[in-house]
């Protein structure tokens, strides 16, 4: 590990000032579960680390009936998974974060850090896209809001500008009667997803009113399966529409080959896991 200066600010304004003063030489640190290996191997060598874990706004986890769940960026994945609030309001999210790595990694690793790291096989992006989440981003010129899918630019590359931090993740309440699920396909529990599918479906009067599907492992970055969503909307939620949606998802996927799986295998698994996710929702409706 190269030497660096270490700061642990107690306020957001102090953190933003530190990040701005050091420009591109400074990097935020949250749980360190993705950053530490990169520092240890010398892949990254920032001159300044700004630990965000004490910033009060980033530590909050709260619910409001209008806005839904607000998750401070440094809330750990383990706390989310075990939170009675999250389990009651958004059980699919609690379940999805429980699929991340191992208990020790989830004990320190934060949801904000997971998203900002933008790892191609990360689990939370798929369910957060399905749940129509947005991100509150804070920077030197104020705050902005970004749909979660717009955070991911490419593998390990996020859309934050220099000096910006992710403040919180906002997950709206589930639409009336809607159900959501996350399915992960990996060999070992601790591996990133070969394919991960998050799906949310709302049925009204026998027809699909709203469908949102988030996919990881289906391309260089997490994406919505818009073709699959289209194949469901306005149709009965039955075997036919589910089969069409699974085919559409596989067709629109642009998977990569890596050490875990080939592109061809991933494309097949996209179809399989979209179908399984939708069938799982259908039997509960």
């Amino acid at each position, binding site marked *: *590990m*190269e*030497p*660096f*200066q*270490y700061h*642990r600010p107690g306020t957001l304004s102090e953190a933003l000032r530190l990040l701005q003063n050091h420009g591109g030489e400074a990097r935020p*640190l949250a749980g*360190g*579960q993705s950053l*530490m*290996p990169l*520092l*240890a*191997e010398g892949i990254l060598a920032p001159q300044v*680390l700004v*630990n965000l*874990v004490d910033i009060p706004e980033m530590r909050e986890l709260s619910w409001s009936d209008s806005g839904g769940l607000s998750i401070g960026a440094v809330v750990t994945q*383990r706390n989310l998974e075990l939170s009675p609030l999250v389990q009651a309001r958004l059980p699919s999210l609690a379940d999805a974060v429980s699929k991340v*790595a*191992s*208990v*020790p*990694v989830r*004990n*320190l690793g934060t949801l904000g850090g997971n998203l900002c790291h933008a790892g191609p096989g990360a689990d939370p992006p798929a369910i957060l896209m399905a749940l129509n989440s947005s991100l509150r981003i804070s920077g030197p010129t104020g705050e902005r809001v970004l749909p979660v899918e717009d955070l991911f630019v490419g593998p390990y590359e996020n859309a934050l500008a220099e000096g910006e931090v992710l403040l919180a993740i906002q997950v709206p309440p589930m639409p009336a009667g809607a159900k959501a699920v996350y399915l992960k396909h990996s060999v*070992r*529990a*601790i591996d990133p997803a070969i394919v991960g599918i998050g799906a949310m479906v709302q049925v009204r009067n026998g027809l699909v009113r709203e469908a949102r599907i988030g996919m990881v492992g289906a391309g260089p970055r997490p994406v919505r399966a818009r073709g699959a969503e289209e194949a469901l909307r306005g149709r009965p939620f039955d075997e036919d529409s589910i089969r069409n949606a699974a085919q559409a998802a596989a067709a629109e996927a642009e998977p990569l080959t890596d050490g875990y799986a080939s592109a061809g295998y991933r494309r097949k698994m996209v179809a399989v896991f979209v179908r399984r996710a939708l069938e799982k929702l259908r039997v509960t409706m």
Partner: protein
Amino acid sequence: MKHLIKLTVNGEEYEVAIEPNRSLLDVLRDDLELTGTKKGCETGDCGACTVVLDGKTVNACLILAVSANGKSILTIEGVAQGGKLHPVQEAFIEHGAIQCGYCTPGMILSAKSLLEENPRPTEWEVREAIAGNLCRCTGYVKIVKAILAVAEEMAKAPVA
């Protein structure tokens, strides 16, 4: 610039002056000479470096020692109390689950934490709890058996 940090390790207080680019693992092993915590991968994959930080298992290779300032840490050296092995340690010996010195410290700490949170785990829950602890040789069967045996013993006669 060195930072002066305080750590409570196995009930003892330590004050160490360290550069910020040191992992908790290196400070435990090299500065405090507590080498029961092992270094396997330094990437969070193996769990050989598992310690309990303020009641939660973490990989000591994935946290900066400065970030652990003020915290309380349990390492494998602190698990036996007054010369008496912890029931998890006893069970590992009895069931032949102590297969090597590399993964065992981490396995024991993960198992102990699981049983404190969930005294009656299913076999699946045991397997999930040690998913971050890699055995690179013999296998998990005896380890899982040992942990389940402790749970069964505890159900019969709760230990303090």
